[in-house]
């Protein structure tokens, strides 16, 4: 497909879905993460198990599903789930119990070490702007085995250090999660409006833990990505270019968002 035929939001979903593991328990937050999880589940081999923090377990969208869930409270999540229960079962038992393989999140800010901010811009005590809040973002970042973050990229969103770390990535570098009492995490990824980032965790977890640009969207120049990143961004050797979405992928995505709730052109 040529660039004109899909939006940036669609491209982000496709790139993020391709970054999904082939199998495992996925817990996705509201917005593009939930849409992406639904999309990935319909595209991929059946090993992805979708669960929500509100209490749906192993949701399998019916083949003719009329929409991806609008948020995590959508009552259509009861149709196709093997179990429905409550938030303690989901965020307590499932997540805290160590059963979530991938968390899919969004945030207002991300930093060099993959920490997220969902709460406030500026100083918490005298903020420039208050946000809705973290919801389940904090615990998914704390306790999921790996995290994929989907968010638009701007210099004020990709910052050296988040204004308020609601959702720990690698905190301030190697070993910090263990020192804080958290389980290790990763490999993680960020999908922005420009491309896909990984983290230098090394093979044995002994890397620098900082974000690295691994692939860019079609036609995107890594130097532009650097410009919209608030720290000296590392770019992987031989940075790849993402394959454009296929017509089938875009058709499926649009079917899942019939009212352009997520994919409004120009939203990103």
């Amino acid at each position, binding site marked *: 497909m040529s660039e004109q035929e899909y939006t940036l939001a669609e491209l982000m979903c496709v790139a993020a879905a391709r970054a999904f593991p082939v199998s495992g328990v996925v817990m996705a937050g509201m917005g593009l993460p939930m849409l992406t999880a639904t999309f990935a589940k319909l595209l991929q081999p059946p090993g992805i198990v979708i669960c929500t923090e*509100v209490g749906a377990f192993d949701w399998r969208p019916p083949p003719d599903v009329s929409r991806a869930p609008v948020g995590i409270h959508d009552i259509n999540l009861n149709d196709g789930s093997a179990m429905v229960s409550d938030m303690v079962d989901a965020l307590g038992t499932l997540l805290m119990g160590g059963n979530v393989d991938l968390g899919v999140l969004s945030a207002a800010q991300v930093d060099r070490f993959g920490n997220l901010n969902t709460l406030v811009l500026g100083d918490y*005590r005298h903020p420039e702007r208050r946000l809705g809040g973290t919801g*389940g973002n904090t615990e998914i970042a*704390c306790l999921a085995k790996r995290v994929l973050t989907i968010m638009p990229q701007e210099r004020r969103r990709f910052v050296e250090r988040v204004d308020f770390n609601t959702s720990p990535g690698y905190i301030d570098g190697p070993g910090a999660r263990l020192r804080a009492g958290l389980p290790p995490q990763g490999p993680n990824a960020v999908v922005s409006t420009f491309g896909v980032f990984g983290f230098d965790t090394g093979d044995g977890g002994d890397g620098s833990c900082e974000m690295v640009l691994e692939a860019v969207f079609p036609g995107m120049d890594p130097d532009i990505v650097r410009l919209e990143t608030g720290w000296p961004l590392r770019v992987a050797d031989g940075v790849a270019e993402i394959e454009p979405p296929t017509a089938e992928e875009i058709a499926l995505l649009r079917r899942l968002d019939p009212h352009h709730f997520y994919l409004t052109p120009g939203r990103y």
Partner: protein
Amino acid sequence: MSASKLMDENEAVARFVDDGDSVYVGYTSAAYGLCQAIVRAGKRNLEAIGGSVGPQGTFLFMGGCANRVRAGYVAAALRPGVVQEMMADGRLRFEDYSNQGIALMLMAGALGIPFIPTRSFLGTDYLRPEFRDHAGGFLRDKKWAEMDSPFDGEKVVLLPALRPDVAVLHAQRADEDGNVQVWGHLGDARWAYWAARKVIVSAEEIVPREVIAADPDRTVTPGFRVSAVVHMPWGGHPSSLVGYYDYDYAYQARTMSRMGRSMEEWQSFADEWIHGVRDRAEYIDHYRAVFGAEALDAIAVNAGPSPIAPVRYGYNATLRFRM
């Protein structure tokens, strides 16, 4: 049993919501009709509680009923507007937790234990003391504590138990004794039912006890813990209720999307949809008058499963003890 707990929403709020109460309002079992009755009754100095506090909580903030919120997510604060201003200037005090945090705190409250440990929040800025004791807060050193497990040395955050004075919840069905049945994903409402000291439930349907007792696994709280039951069809509108109706996004976009921007916008909304009606029945009448008699059909359920295999709660009534 005791006398019937059935009453209308205005009586339920008058009798069981007191000025100063902490009120679980939540997200998934959103009791829009009850929250609107609270605004109509002019209750004051309330605290709104929920893992996430949905737009029905916005009514309480904008309506001057609630001046405190304890939550992981506040829909009213999502976009710039009056609630963000209230949080900045101290009119609305707040304590930020998370969905899991509030859910566990409600569970601890229900369990009658003073705190519950979690491994969430570790490594975050929530634990920085200068943020715990922020000027807009109201918990200070009652907000959380940290300790190492005496069994394995593992770090945990202790969250204090949370027992709301009252919970307002909307449900699929109840009987007049207050036995409530809910199905579908429950969010943190499952523990709010048990944690709150007073429970007010609005339900789409009031059924005989026989219906409840024939499928007791669906009951989420026994009636003796419930203070009032309100028969209220469409009581969750414009939120959704599994098996009854879906979100009314169109109504929200048309009537509620601007209500948080200014007090004038709020007053216009409230005059029409809260103060302009006596109860939820009149609200629905008004809805039909404005949008057409058939407008609610657009959100009625038209897909989704129902049980396709029976269950039985059987036993043997002629059991013998010896062969």
